[in-house]
């Protein structure tokens, strides 16, 4: 029967020991342990969140990089095209210019040639005139060597003038 009857002395000691145990454990064991466990759990949760966030950021960054790369490529292509155009233009320009220049030179040469030719012709003309005069003088001297010849010539000349 006394197996199921509570004992005052044991109740007293159980009360004291259990209350002390509850107090000491709550203050010096459960509090630091649970705080540490909670802090760690929070840390892990935050880390996981951060990882997800970082991943998203990385993705965004990558997309941005791709965009930049694409733009850079487009710009490069553009620049290359422009450069090519400019070069073509320059070549074209140069060609045109040189053509004009050449034409100018050719023109100048032709003018020169023409004037030289004219001068030469004039000189030849003079020379020929001189020669003709000399020949004519000589002929005339011959013609005029006798009176008959002078007379015949005069007549002929007169005949030419009349005809003209």
């Amino acid at each position, binding site marked *: 029967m006394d197996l199921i009857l509570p004992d005052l002395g044991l109740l007293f000691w159980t009360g004291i020991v259990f209350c002390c145990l509850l107090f000491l*454990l709550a203050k010096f064991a*459960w509090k630091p342990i649970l705080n540490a466990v909670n802090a760690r759990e929070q840390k892990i949760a935050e880390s996981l969140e951060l990882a997800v966030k970082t991943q998203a950021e990385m993705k965004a960054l990558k997309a941005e990089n791709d965009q930049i790369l694409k733009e850079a490529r487009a710009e490069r292509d553009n620049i290359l095209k422009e450069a090519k155009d400019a070069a073509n233009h320059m070549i074209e320009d140069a060609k045109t210019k040189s053509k004009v220049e050449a034409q100018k030179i050719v023109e100048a040469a032709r003018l020169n040639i023409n004037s030289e030719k004219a001068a030469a012709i004039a000189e030849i003309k003079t020379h020929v005139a001189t020669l003709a005069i000399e020949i004519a003088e000589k002929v005339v001297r011959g013609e005029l060597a006798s009176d008959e010849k002078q007379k015949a010539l005069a007549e002929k000349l007169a005949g030419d003038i009349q005809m003209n």
Partner: protein
Amino acid sequence: MQHFSKLSIFMRKVTILLLFIGISGFSFANKEKEFNVSEMIMHHIKDAHEWHLYGPEHGGTSIYLPVILMDNGLKTFSSKHLYHGESVEVAGKEQEISLHYVKGVGPASGYALYHEEIYKLNGAGELQFDGEHPHNPQPLDFSITKNVMSLLMGAFLILIVMFSVAKFYRKNGAVAPKGIAKFFEPIIVMVRDDIAKENINEHKYKKYVPYLLTIFFFIWFNNMLGLIPFLPGGANLTGNITVTLFLSVCTLLVTLFSGNKNYWGHIFWMPGIPVPMKIFMMPIEIIGIFTKPFALMIRLFANITAGHIIVLALIGLIFINKNIAWAGLSVPMALFISVLEILVAFLQGFLFAMLSALFIGAAVEEAHH
């Protein structure tokens, strides 16, 4: 490794038990007395003023614990003066039984020990029996009995273990646990998450976690100590009705002081049912307040005491049959039960904390709309 040490503890337990019961059995045999298995078991599962180590039950080697009596002032002496006092045999009412008690000597004179209870001797210096129970008054006994000693050692063990766990975190901060912290952290987290958080309102459970943790580890550690058959274990502390009574009263008080308007409303004026039923339900609900912790008290007491009784009874088979060959049957069976008791030790702690959390949870629950 842990498995092995549990096994070795058990083997030692069996050996010591055999030794203990064997010698006590022989001493009975010498006196031409039958080996009384129920007396042996009862002696083990009840409290005592000494801690028996080895040797015969009377006259073996024991640690004599201090006796503290409140009887016209504080009286303290060693229980040695009670156990080694003047032995008295009295014939009972029925002639075939003789009652045996010990009168204290020296500082213990004036007191007698009968069935581990201390009585005051009457004017004639003897106990006045009525049937098997003495009529003499009993002084208030605050002795450090075997159970109190076991309680102190258990509490000390819990403090050492949990302080070293706490020390790990204080030293290392919020890192992954190592060593002893690694072993106990999952259990602490289990109490917090699966017991407290699961049963108590999410916003209120934090307040009750220290209580539930303390009650769980108190029961678990003391259950495990009870399974060790020698110092520092062997007492039947958590199988003592006083201890389970105290623990269940704690849960009752926590529940009552946590009860909100909704809880008391459900007890005194159950909503949602007709008025005659409300009146009918009131006493049932009021009784329900007390039956819940009462069930807690009985469950722990019965489970642990039953475990001790089964192991002792199985070992007792050898001495009932007076043949060592019975050890071939009783030792493996006792081994099986002891391993089962290791599970039960944990399970009962878990159940007590779980049901406490359930009752507290019901008391702090908000009304559903």
